[in-house]
């Protein structure tokens, strides 16, 4: 069961980090009138279309002992980033970014502009308006972002394999574990894990759809 627990740990970390990173980013995307916004939107959406191996490959290069991220990590913590839990979190954050940003952005955009104007006229600065008006009215978007990034991280395989390798207790998530079992022809064990993952994923999606019926509005707004 350690692989399942590890997957949960990873997905939980990623979901929380993505909410904290994604909210300001989504806020900016939702309200900025910068002309070059589409560039950033495209970059955020890249993980949706790229094979996980491509993202994983470049993440691995960046995290390696000669990559910029790897060197920074070594100078900060004294050890490398590749094939560690930390590295896995960073790669997963990149990989699941659109799943957090998109629902947040959609729900921020849906907040009536007049409410935001009213808040400003009543003396509230941007931060107060965000905290008191935009965020509470985007509750379904926040839950959707959390749940989707959690579920998507839980189910990822390619990026984990590229960046994390297959170290029991450190980087062997449940999806890798299933692959391992199949490679060793342990079908009963594979089935056991796979069924569990299937059930969890289904439950999570039920939760999302129950809260919000308009989740899958990819690609963005065209």
């Amino acid at each position, binding site marked *: 069961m350690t692989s399942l627990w590890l997957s949960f740990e990873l997905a939980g970390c990623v979901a929380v980090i993505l909410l904290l990173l994604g909210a300001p980013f989504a806020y900016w995307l939702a309200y900025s009138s910068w002309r070059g916004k589409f560039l950033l939107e495209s970059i955020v959406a890249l993980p949706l279309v790229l094979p996980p191996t491509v993202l994983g490959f470049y993440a691995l290069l960046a995290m390696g002992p000669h990559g910029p991220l790897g060197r920074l990590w070594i100078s900060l913590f004294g050890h490398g980033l590749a094939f560690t839990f930390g590295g896995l979190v960073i790669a997963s954050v990149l990989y699941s970014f659109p799943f957090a940003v998109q629902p947040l952005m959609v729900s921020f955009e849906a907040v009536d502009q*007049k409410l935001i*104007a*009213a808040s*400003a*006229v*009543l*003396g*509230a*600065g941007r931060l107060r308006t965000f905290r008191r*008006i935009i965020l509470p009215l985007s509750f379904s978007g926040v839950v959707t972002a959390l749940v989707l990034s959690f579920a998507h991280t839980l189910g990822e395989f390619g990026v984990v394999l590229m960046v994390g390798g297959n170290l029991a207790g450190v980087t062997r998530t449940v999806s890798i574990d299933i692959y391992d079992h199949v490679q060793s022809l342990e079908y009963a064990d594979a089935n056991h894990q796979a069924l569990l993952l299937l059930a969890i994923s289904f439950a999570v999606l039920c939760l999302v759809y129950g809260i919000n019926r308009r989740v899958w509005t990819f690609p963005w707004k065209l």
Partner: protein
Amino acid sequence: METIGREVDPSSLFASIRVDRGNHAAPFVLDVSIEAPPGITILFGPSGAGKSTLLDCVAGLVRPNSGKITVGEEIFFDSASKAELPPQRRRVAYVFQSLALFPHLTVGQNVEYGLNHLPETRRQTRVTEILEAFRVGHLRNQKASQISGGERQRTALARSLVTAPRVLLLDEPLTGLDSELKTSIVDDLRVWNAARRIPVLYVTHSREEVDALGERVIAIDRGRVQDRGAPMDVLDAPRRKRLAQAGGFENLLTAKVLDLRESDGVMRVRLAETMREIEVPLAHASAGDQLHIAIRAGDIMLAAEPPRGLSARNILEGKMVSLERRAAMVIAKVDCGATFVVHVTPGATRALELAAGKRVWLVLKTHSCHHVD
């Protein structure tokens, strides 16, 4: 901002701005210069005239391309000196047409929202006072999304006014209310402002509200000030066709001047649509000119048989097309070549046995026929 917290002297709002909006296909330019002394100034005009854009500029939500906006000594915006106060610091109260109540907060929390700078106890006192003044004290703990139409309007007014603003902007705040409710809210607003005397810009296109509120009217159309003055002067002799329609002149007719009778102060015109002649007040025109005549539906008399012995000079024969009951009024359409809209009372409708198809006569007083150029 040392003025915060104490009452400011009543001071006028002055705005002289230009805003370029829209695109190449449909350019829109708002180019106005207005002054609003303490008291209610009505901005009147058809939708799309630029009234709301003007309010947005005063509130700081839209940046004018050029110009200057001041309240008393304070400069809100000045393109020449590149001065611009953010909306948070203008102390402007703005009631939007949609009211923009925060739906997830209670009535009390909505009203309290703009008092963040005050200590808690002071805040609660102010909220209690204003909720009572606008008769929504009993709704304090209800969600804003769960209260009724008139209560929403009252809450929105209370939320804006509790901040002790120096300017009040009202964008059709009473749309969709019945006239009784309107009157009672307008009375409360009047009482409130009698004590404070701040400039109030009140946007509307309802005649009824102009009559109830108006001290001054500024008529705006297509981004320009068309007219200003007392309500009677501005609205009862409209200079523009579109304003005439907005101003409650249901009948707008094209006419050709036949001859002037200057000693009588009248002239005869032929209505283009009907080929009938009527007598209207004298205008700066000469024979052969074309002009527009605007007549209120309420100013037309309707007779079921040929009228005799009247002072009114204009009698048109026609046929009743339709009758439509609306509240305490019947809207009759009469075909005299052109279709006239006439307002009659339900009692008169019964007494004259009016029905579609019936032959009727319209009586127009000369001075009920207004010129529009």
